[in-house]
């Protein structure tokens, strides 16, 4: 897709940005990139040159405090993309900048410094260290920063409380359940207070119920401290739940980038439509999207403007009156009546 289409909300300053990122595995990457630019399919390129074009001309901007979700099925290149952004892999062509500094141009040492202070990652298979206790896992980044043992343990203990693992510090990760292990992974990433957090399918190895817990946990943490997040997933529901903006990735490129609502309202390609078709609107639409603007006194029950319709259905069912919609500060911004919601539930609306 064209670069212009993928540039995001430009009102906010971009913390992290990528321009024309390519990642090609194989012997003749330049030839492969030329062919990809000519629009030749990935299969064809692999067959004729032996190159795999994993990421193909991807550009993006992530604003401070934003959760940017990259959603794609297996083989779409999403995992390679996040590794390119974090420079665990070197890109073949293109630029990735953090606060305007080109990550690709950095020396090993500069890159290490950036990683020690500014970025962190949560992995699909947790990537925990089985030979270290939970607390020493969480303290690992601080240890690499060179902090003294007492200080980093103190800090790690605080973080354990934050991720709900207070008291588990002296266990080994493999003694914990999957969900708790990922809390350790999350705590380890949060401990260094990074500017940017990468999540590489962090919850896909978990049971559905635990996965929902972890998603809510992440939302709670985001509500407390707004972090800049790049989140990789293959689960569209997860993308909608967590993402401020979502990029749908296919064959190494972004098909469409936008808010959940935008994707739902105007799917750019048949591929995007396939995902949005089965999604219930009540999950995506928030109270703020369907309310009639209204100011004044609150009457009867109220709900937060950022709650999804799904979440406020029970309130709607309890009363026949209009219900109030309030902004985070608690003042009334609008009202919703049942009719508006019922019309949403009808197919084809």
């Amino acid at each position: 897709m064209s670069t212009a289409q993928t540039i995001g909300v430009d009102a906010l300053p971009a913390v992290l940005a990528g321009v024309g990122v390519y990642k090609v595995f194989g012997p003749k990457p330049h030839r492969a990139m030329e062919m990809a630019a000519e629009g030749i399919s990935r299969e064809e390129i692999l067959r004729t040159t032996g190159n795999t074009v994993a990421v193909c001309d991807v550009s993006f901007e992530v604003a401070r405090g934003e959760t940017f979700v990259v959603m794609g099925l297996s083989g779409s290149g999403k995992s390679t993309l996040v590794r390119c952004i974090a420079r665990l892999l070197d890109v073949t062509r293109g630029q990735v900048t953090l606060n305007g500094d080109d990550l690709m141009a950095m020396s090993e040492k500069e890159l290490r410094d950036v990683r020690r202070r500014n970025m962190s990652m949560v992995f699909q298979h947790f990537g925990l260290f089985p030979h270290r206790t939970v607390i020493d896992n969480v303290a690992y980044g601080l240890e690499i920063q060179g902090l003294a043992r007492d200080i980093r343990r103190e800090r790690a203990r605080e973080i354990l409380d934050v991720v709900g693992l207070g008291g588990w510090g002296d266990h080994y990760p493999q003694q914990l359940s999957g969900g708790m292990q990922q809390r350790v992974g999350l705590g380890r990433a949060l401990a260094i207070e990074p500017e940017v957090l990468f999540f590489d399918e962090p919850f896909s190895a978990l049971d559905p119920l635990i996965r929902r817990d972890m998603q809510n946990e992440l939302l709670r943490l985001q509500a407390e401290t707004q972090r800049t997040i790049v989140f990789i997933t293959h689960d569209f529901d997860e993308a909608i739940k967590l993402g401020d903006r979502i990029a749908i990735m296919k064959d190494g490129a972004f098909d469409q980038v936008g808010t959940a609502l935008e994707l739902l309202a105007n799917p750019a390609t048949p591929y995007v439509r396939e995902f949005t078709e089965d999604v219930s609107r009540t999950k995506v639409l928030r109270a703020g999207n369907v309310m009639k603007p209204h100011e004044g006194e609150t009457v009867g029950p109220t709900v937060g403007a950022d709650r999804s319709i799904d979440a406020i259905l029970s309130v709607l069912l309890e009363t026949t009156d209009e219900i109030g919609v309030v902004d985070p500060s608690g003042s009334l911004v609008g009202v919703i009546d049942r009719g508006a919601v019922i019309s949403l539930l009808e197919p084809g609306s």
Partner: protein
Amino acid sequence: MTTVAPTAGLPLALSGLRRYWRWVLLVVGFVILQAVFSSADEFPAWFDDTFKDPIDRAGNWMQAHRRTHVVFTDFFTPLSDAVRWALDSVESALLWVPWFVLPASVFLVVARSHGWRPALIPAMAMLYPGLIGLWEETVDTLALMTIAVFISVAVGVPLGVWGALRPRAEKTMRPALDAMQTVPAPVYFLPMLMLFGIGRVPATFATVIYALPPVVRLTTLGIREVPSHAVEASEMFGATPRQTMTKVQLPMALPTIMTGVSQTIMMALGIVVLATMLGAGGLGQEIMDTLSQRRTGRGFAVGLAVVAVAIVLDRISRAVVVTDRSKLPSTRTTLIAVSALVVLVIVGFVTGTTEFPDVWDVKTFDPVDNGVDWTRDNLRWLTRWFNDLVVAEFYVPVRDLLIDTIAWPVLVFVVGWMSWMIGGRKLAVFTTAMMLATGAIGMWSPSLDTLTQVVAAVALSVAIALPVGIWAGRNPRVEAALGPVLDALQTIPSLVYIIPAVIFFTVGVVPGIIASVLYAIVPGIRITALAIREVPEASIEASQVFGATPRQTMFGVRVPLAAPTIMAGINQVIMMVLAMVIISGLVGGGALGFATVSAVKRSEFGNGAEVAFAIVAIAMILDRTTQAIAERLRPPAAEQ
């Protein structure tokens, strides 16, 4: 070919020819060459002196200049001095402390990480040699093993790390490591003799060479097996490569590395006894003596002492490396334990009981020896019959056939051609070149003699190991029952096998063959059982669903699917048999084994090098051809 009608005689013959032309050519070539060369003499040793003389000269030069030349004064002599100093220090320290401190320390060190119950066995193992009056010899061997294992780990772990980080380094190291493991140990002795003279230092280095490969290999493997996401996680926190290595990769690879260290200890144990040939002394010398005195009971007791040393070292090495710190006792307990040891030392010196008391010394083992003598005398009819059967019906005819009847060019052709059929051109060129070179340096006849013994022992081993292995693989109970027996057979140093063999079968080729079989059936049985057990259950069920009888399932599904692994087991059997046949040169096996022993004993460098080359040639030919067969048996891998 499918269109050819069955009645068409000529095309059918043609198609048969096209299919079997390799075999036809083999037979035709054999007949023609045999007719042409039937009167050929023994293999002409064209290059006997060209090869031997320079090595003799080099060896003599080294002996003459050991005290003067800069290579020795500045490198080998200091190295040798350092190792000798380490050996002496460890040994005198171990002998200095009162004897009961050693088992006590072993107990405490192991108990610290593994609890007191598992610590009892190594503590008793440490005590045992003293009870049979071998305290000093055991401490001697323990010191040599400790230093050898220490050097192996100190050299092997960095090499393994290097191999894991640089695939190209691993690729260049692999053949060297393969060679170190395939080549029978006595082959190393000669170069060690040339460089370090006689004594415990060359014995230590020979042990290190032999014992090094497992720790290198398993370090590489362990580091490779560390999940990539753990390494990525470490990188993401900005760890330097060195930090990732020391904080993540090495600790996570530790269990695998420790398996390598255990294996290294076992290998060192096998060689340390043989190293007596280099003048190592200790328990090895004791075994050699009992061997020459034919004292079974004593030999068995000494053999157990060697095993005891291995157990002590193995448990200590595992206890020192702790993975789970939460299981360690408190600092207070540790302090109490250390002070208890100090008190023990003081008590020992005050009461003057530093040496192991003679009270329990059981030096004679007469009842065992008498019992064995009685059994031997009463079984003589059987052993003699077997001995004569093997010698007269197999060994002599086959050896004469290979050496005298079949002309040497015919043998080279047949082996070369068959290796081409098995493994292609590369293998054929290799085996042919190896055979020609062996012949050219005058090693043709002794090599074929040794080969005959190897074939006999391998045939016997496979005949026993395959059925037993298949039985064990299908019946877990059988395997569980065999387990301890196989474990024991595997831990006993190879030389110990020879003692009963010699006693029952007198001196000659047969005890060597018997000992080889005992030594080599263990991996044969183990790997066969493993191969049979690992056949996927789904394949077995599929066969049963089609109504196959157990027999059909066995030979139609299980055996073919297990064949490549079984072949790998046979490869190991062959390698172990070869090593043992060489060692049995000590007890009248003759051929290359005897030539090695006598070359080492008389410091005949040139002869030794020729024998060594011949052994290596046989080892590599057998190794590569059996591996090629295993490769052919393997079903094609899935395409990417």
